[in-house]
């Protein structure tokens, strides 16, 4: 059986609440990072608030419809980001959100590797039928990475986001279980 937690460049872990808190405090300083992650107004959250959030997650354990991973590089064993999965257990659809905190770690192929691990987890461990994600027009780097992983663009909600006084689209992508299985066969050859 395959290693679910180890990719080519990164691995999935779960950091201690204190480590996650320290990292989150640093990462949120970069407003670009926050704006790539979400289209809500950027926030400046306290250490206390982050800590309580991570501790609550640790206490309650993860609910069945939610999986959270921390991400470390294989080469230097550095904590670089996170990946979260939300599940619709009835319709067997999963949604993924991910972030790589420090800009030195962007464009290194880590995101692509994280998503490949995520696809493997969602389809071969969680038995989902489809994996979905959303991104913003102003994030072409993410779009390239998602396309590389086999996600198909399924549409754009026109001008649903306003940043810097400009209207931009959100893009929506998805990959079906059969599509992922086909890709696996192609790679096995």
């Amino acid at each position, binding site marked *: 059986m395959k290693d679910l937690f180890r990719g080519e460049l990164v691995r999935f872990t779960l950091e201690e609440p204190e480590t996650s808190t320290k990292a989150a405090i640093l990462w949120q300083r970069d407003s670009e990072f926050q704006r790539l992650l979400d289209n809500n107004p950027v926030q400046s959250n306290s250490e206390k608030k982050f800590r309580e959030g991570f501790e609550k997650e640790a206490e309650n354990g993860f609910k069945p419809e939610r999986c959270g991973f921390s991400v470390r590089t294989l080469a230097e064993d550095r904590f670089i980001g996170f990946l979260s999965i939300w599940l619709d257990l009835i319709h*067997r659809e999963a949604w993924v959100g991910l972030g790589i905190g420090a800009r030195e770690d962007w464009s290194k192929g880590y995101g692509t590797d994280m998503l490949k691990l995520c696809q493997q987890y969602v389809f071969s461990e969680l038995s989902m*039928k489809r994996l*979905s994600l959303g991104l913003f027009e102003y994030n072409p780097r993410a779009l390239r990475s998602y396309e590389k992983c086999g996600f*198909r663009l*399924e*549409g754009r909600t026109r001008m649903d986001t*306003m940043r810097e006084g400009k209207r931009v689209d959100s893009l929506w992508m998805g990959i*079906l279980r059969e599509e992922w299985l086909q890709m696996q066969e192609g790679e096995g050859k």
Partner: protein
Amino acid sequence: MLDIQTQLFESQDLRLGPIDHEKDPEIESKWTHSSEFMRLMDTEPARPLSAAVIKKQYEKLEKRVEENKNLFHFMVRLKADDRLIGKATIQWIEWTNGNAFLRLGIGLADDWRKGYGTQALKLLLRIAFAELNLFRVSAIVPEYNQAAVALLHKFGFVQEVCRRSALERDGRRWDLYVFGLLRDEWQNRSTG
């Protein structure tokens, strides 16, 4: 001149208004006993709900309105006899982006195909654009809800996203659509 005479809450046959916590639960409870209605309205598993459950839902809803300030909810009644026939919501409002999602349901099959959906959606759009100043509205519709698809097309909504086989019902997969309408598109239509 600013048009404040045109009524926001009234159409030819309908009136949008508040929840009646005494009388409405029993009526909405009846709607939930139609699995067809429940499946058209929601992707959550359909279940019949008692008046007591509906009553609690109303209380939660009003709390959400007060706390989150990103939700407007209306009951749809016939002007003629004040009978409750449906509900209409503008929800998940993102104020900084000017985007929100619409939800609309006419409860009893006997009240379908009478143009009530059209009247209610027209009112809802005017509230969204002329009162809440939204830039666009969205609606999420499963492939099998052809009545909703037709209604949205009638108002000029564009099918923007097709989430392929995102739902499973009756043992097969269905697509889920996201529709969108921009304020400009609405304005050009209502004046034209």
